[in-house]
């Protein structure tokens, strides 16, 4: 077996970057989501505005000085505005933020995310995770949301133990009926492929496989039944130029992971 030409994180960042259009705003978490946004900005979306939840608008992340949090000078490097955290999220509630980029610990067939508790009772959980942070707000309030995540069976579960951040809840109209008028989860970009949701039932659906990934690999790494439409695309592999650009942003490979 030959060495892969890109790491899983590189694949996610490149595929994620392609979801972003020019003349839009993106609310991005740190790590791979931020890399994806910076890549898009450098490649095809020069008038993209990055928004970071610590209260940062329009930063130009310095290559090699990547932030590890949403609240630090590396994240705010050469920003155009630094509103309060609350005001930053309120831009999303008002409708100014086109796309939200988030990760996730557990995700289920309706795109619900859990970053709170796994196992046990809520107040005495088996594993207590860090919590929502801004993920709930982003998925509730941004116009469109893309989840970027490693595709593993322990993450893709039948039903999340706790809905920290609402995808389509019970599917169908249940999200809208809960009062969530705005925003929707449009894509789940994983290390295996790209997923959407069927318009009626809002169940997760395979839309495209990454190069050299099979449907069986998806089924094997997914803890629920994924809808498989007749026609499934194959994504364009990361180009040499995309990879070159991406690697220049994270030369220390802090988030891109070790090349084999």
């Amino acid at each position: 077996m030959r060495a892969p030409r890109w790491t899983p994180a590189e694949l996610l960042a490149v595929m994620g970057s392609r979801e972003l259009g020019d003349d839009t705003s993106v609310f991005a978490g740190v790590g791979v989501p931020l890399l994806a946004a910076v890549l898009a900005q450098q490649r095809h979306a020069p008038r993209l505005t990055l928004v970071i939840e610590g209260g940062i608008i329009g930063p130009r992340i310095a290559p090699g000085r990547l932030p590890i949090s949403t609240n630090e000078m590396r994240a705010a490097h050469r920003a155009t505005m630094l509103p309060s955290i609350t005001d930053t999220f309120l831009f999303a509630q008002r409708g100014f933020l086109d796309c939200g980029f988030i990760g996730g610990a557990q995700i289920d067939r309706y795109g619900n995310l859990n970053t709170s508790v796994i196992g046990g009772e809520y107040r005495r959980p088996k594993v207590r995770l860090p919590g929502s942070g801004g993920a709930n707000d982003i998925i509730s309030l941004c116009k469109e949301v893309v989840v970027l995540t490693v595709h593993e069976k322990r993450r893709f579960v039948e039903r999340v133990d706790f809905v920290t951040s609402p995808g389509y809840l019970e599917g169908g109209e249940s999200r809208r009926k809960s009062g969530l008028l705005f925003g929707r989860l449009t894509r789940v970009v994983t290390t295996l492929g790209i997923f959407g949701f069927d318009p009626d039932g809002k169940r997760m659906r395979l839309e495209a496989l990454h190069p050299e990934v099979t449907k069986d690999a998806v089924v094997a790494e997914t803890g629920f039944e994924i809808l498989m439409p007749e026609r499934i695309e194959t994504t364009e592999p990361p180009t040499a130029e995309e990879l070159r650009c991406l690697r220049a942003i994270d030369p220390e490979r802090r988030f891109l992971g070790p090349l084999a």
Partner: protein
Amino acid sequence: MPGAAAPYDFREARRRLEAKAKSSGEKLTSIEDAVARVKDGDLVAAGGCLFSRTPMALVREILRQRRQRLTLARNLMCTEGELMMVAGAVDKVVTAWMSIGLPWGVSKIMREYVESGRVPLEEWSHLALGLRFRAAAMGVPFLPTLTMLGSDLIPVGGTKTLECPYTGETLALVPALFPDVAILHVHRADRFGNCQIDGYPHMDADIARAAATVLVTAEEIIPGDEVRRRPDRTSIPGFVVDALVHVPYGSFPHECYGLYEADFDHFGEYAAAIDAAGSRAVAGYLDRYVYGPATYGDYLDRFGRERLRRQAKYARELTR
């Protein structure tokens, strides 16, 4: 027909924002092009307060383009409101207070137009109107408050009250106010529309977030790098702004904090002319200051450059 939605309809307001490009690209244009975005019948909210940071160049261009049936919303209204009334541009005003200033008593123009029923005045308390813009800026249909309760401002504004589900107390819920267009004057901006304001911020930041379309004039256009050196001075981000125009003295004869004081002598002459001739004096004023001068520079020349320099000196004395 977006403008026909109820002012508190946050769903429609959100849809309009979602449909608009949120670009960090070029926003600099001419005043004519900026104001072409204002449509007859629009709800226009003006920034600043009374005679401070009034977007006078934008008001003037709206009148020159002969917009009609506008609703003008502004927390405290001054001469700009009188000009719009007499020019026939407004069908209604939404405000907490309207006159020129304490020394000149109750506005005779406001009285003439409101008492005759030609221009209804929708009245809110100062905080309530501020909260209406803030609710809109936050993307919610109302904000709770304890102001206005018990007063006659509650029934005339149609403000609903709520028994608080947490405490059982009565709260006023002031409805959001989503303008079609915000018109604002700021101290400086880069060409991408990132705006910085010195001194009192008034309600401009909320109004910018509340509106579907945002037009800004700036005293100074600065390089983007300068904004990035002091991002904590930015109060309106570029992706909120639709059009930006470079207009020095863009509030004159009203003030701009630190740059020029309001021309109180001019107000006195203006008020005296109204005392003598009523709204006919304002019609003459419109010819002389609004319709006549072809450019904003010509407009400023009617005041005289010496006057501008003097008012700039007063401002420096008061703020240094």
